[in-house]
């Protein structure tokens, strides 16, 4: 389809082959290869094994107990899970997480990429725009949440300003309306997060060889098509990095909700991470909190495992 482009890909794979052949002939024990690097990574491996894996196993184990304030090995089977899935607040949390997840995934990718593509048009003052777009990311979620809590407060935020301008029936109070509060929270998350996504995308776009663009022009492909069918597929690694960053941000969302609504009105903007925290510490019911966090782990695993299988399993 695009002959000039095809060439490039072929060349690259051909170059990497001989290096592998050479190392194969002279290695006594693969265990001692790159010994320095292996020694250096021992602390991290230990941390990962003890803190992450160990902590996870411990949490899952205790989620089958009736531990209250202090952990106790008194097994009650799946009771905590039955209770969890019968709790309206947990169901609302899951629903909110799904809505929030879809919104932040779709919009931060789309807006982030669009901003990056626009900045990539060799415009003037690019540095200035980049700084402006990235600035919100310098703020923590707590600060972001507070700022947007004020902006969206009907008594002195956007609604108040517009009403003062003359539109007295104007109403915009997403944080005080149970049915749309999660969207109000998403606005703040997008405002804070898209700048970073834009930067990652921009780096990806800059990583595309200038020759690709030239080749595409030689083939007479319109610019939008070049982006959609050539540049984006080539940016696959960048997209995967971005996806991981966004997805981990979605699952752990907590501080933003606490700062903006603390779960309210009522329990309309609760999220799973907050359920875990509240039940572990406020309700002094560790078992229930562990069960909820195990469910969070499980939901991440359901997304990651098939993807990892496709990504890494297929190559072997």
């Amino acid at each position, binding site marked *: 389809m695009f002959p000039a482009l095809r060439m490039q890909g072929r060349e690259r794979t051909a170059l990497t082959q001989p290096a592998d052949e050479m190392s194969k002939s002279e290695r006594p024990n693969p265990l001692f290869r790159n010994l320095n690097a292996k020694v250096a990574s021992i602390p991290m491996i230990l941390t990962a094994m003890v803190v992450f894996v160990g902590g996870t196993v411990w949490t899952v184990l205790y989620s089958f107990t009736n531990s*209250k*304030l*202090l952990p106790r090995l008194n097994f009650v089977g799946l009771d905590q899970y039955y*209770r969890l899935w019968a*709790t*309206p*607040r947990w169901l609302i949390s899951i629903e909110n997480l799904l809505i929030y997840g879809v919104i932040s995934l779709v919009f931060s990718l789309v807006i982030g990429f669009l901003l990056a593509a626009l900045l990539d048009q060799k415009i003037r003052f690019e540095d200035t725009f980049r700084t402006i777009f990235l600035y919100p990311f310098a703020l923590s979620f707590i600060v972001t949440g507070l700022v947007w809590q004020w902006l969206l*407060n*009907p*008594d002195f935020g956007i609604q108040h300003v517009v009403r003062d301008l003359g539109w007295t029936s104007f109403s915009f109070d997403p944080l*005080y309306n*149970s049915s749309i509060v999660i969207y109000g929270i998403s606005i703040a998350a997008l405002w804070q997060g898209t700048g970073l996504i834009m930067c990652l995308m921009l780096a990806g776009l800059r990583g595309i060889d200038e020759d690709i663009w030239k080749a595409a022009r030689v083939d007479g492909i319109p610019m939008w098509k070049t982006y959609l069918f050539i540049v984006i597929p080539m940016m696959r690694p960048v997209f995967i990095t971005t996806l991981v960053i966004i997805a981990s941000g979605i699952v752990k969302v907590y501080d933003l909700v606490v700062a903006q609504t*603390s*779960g*309210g*009105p*009522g*329990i*309309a903007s609760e999220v799973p991470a907050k359920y875990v925290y*509240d*039940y572990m*510490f*406020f*309700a*002094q*019911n560790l078992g*229930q909190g562990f069960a909820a966090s195990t469910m969070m782990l499980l939901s991440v695993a359901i997304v990651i495992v098939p993807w990892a299988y496709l990504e890494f399993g297929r190559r072997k």
Partner: protein
Amino acid sequence: MRYKLLTAALAATVALQFAGPAAATDLEVTHWWTSGGEAAAVAELAKAFDATGNHWVDGAIAGSGGTARPIMISRITGGDPMGATQFNHGRQAEELVQAGLMRDLTDVATKGKWTEVVRPKSLLDSCTIDGKIYCVPVNIHSWQWLWLSNEAFEKAGVPMPKDWNEFVAAAPALEKAGIIPLAVGGQAWQSSGAFDVLLAAVGGTDTFLKVYKDKDAKFAAGPEVAKVFKAADDARKMAKNTNVQDWNQATNLVITGKAGGQIMGDWAQGEFQVAGKTAGKDYTCLPGLGLNEVIATGGDAFYFPVLKDADKSKAQDVLAETLLDPKTQVAFNLKKGSLPVRGDVDLNAANDCMKKGLAILAKGAVIPWTDQLLSQDSQKQKEDLFAEFFAKPELTVEEAQKRFADLIASAD
């Protein structure tokens, strides 16, 4: 268990070093008293403790008990205990005591004859586990109050209500005058507390005890409790325009006449006092919502974690005595707006509302409070339910009552 071993080791070191010299000792005291009235009250405790030659290191944790308790508990279980810490007496610290992390104060209690001076007796009972005393109650806080703004009712042109029913009837007039009839802050414990007050006031003492003490789920699903849910439905309609979170912001709406009233514990009185308002003239209080004049004997108590340092342990004893000292009791409770735990103190300086409370207490019309009856777990579930109920008009009364009954069935 690990904690038991640790405690045994700690107790041994304490016993060995007990003959240390008496000197000024710093003792960190954590609490969640941070609003204006509360801070003024806690300063009285600090003053009294400093006067004994020791030093009160203030460890205030902002953001109400719900935020503060997890921090306190993690410090104690994590091996960084403070000198003393506030909890609501009852079941909040139950497991910490059972794990041997709290000091047994029975000796200090016997010396100070606490069993004779503390009244009502139920206060000390909730500090007692297996016959040993583990905490010092400092005040009686009752939730059963309706605070009304005289200014708001004048503005609306309706007479001051004498009970909850009249208040509900006056709501339309208040709304017409642009006043929020009932202020309920957004924090979950406020709506859940308001319901408990309605349960005791509209339902009556027996209903309250049957639900929370006997945990009778069938009764909780029945017509008696349905009446209470009807009242709670009125309350949420009256409160729907409150756009504040914290309880003292809600109280402030009543102080400034922007709201007609608030169901809140007697700690709200401290706020009225700080704002320079007079009971009877600027605001009116109705204990038991004017329907059922009872007082719940919830309140605050200080617990003393087991410490390694012998000097600090000694200072803990001094603090425990100081907290129950008649003079401290009066000074503290006047500022706090709560009732003293001793029956033998002079409270002439008390204002109208406190005198009403004292009279009810003297009559013995007391009930235990949810902190004493329910575990934190059940309380949290209750909070979730009522936070949703107050914020979501689509949640029907019947549905809410059904969920409430389920909750009572599984409560512990």
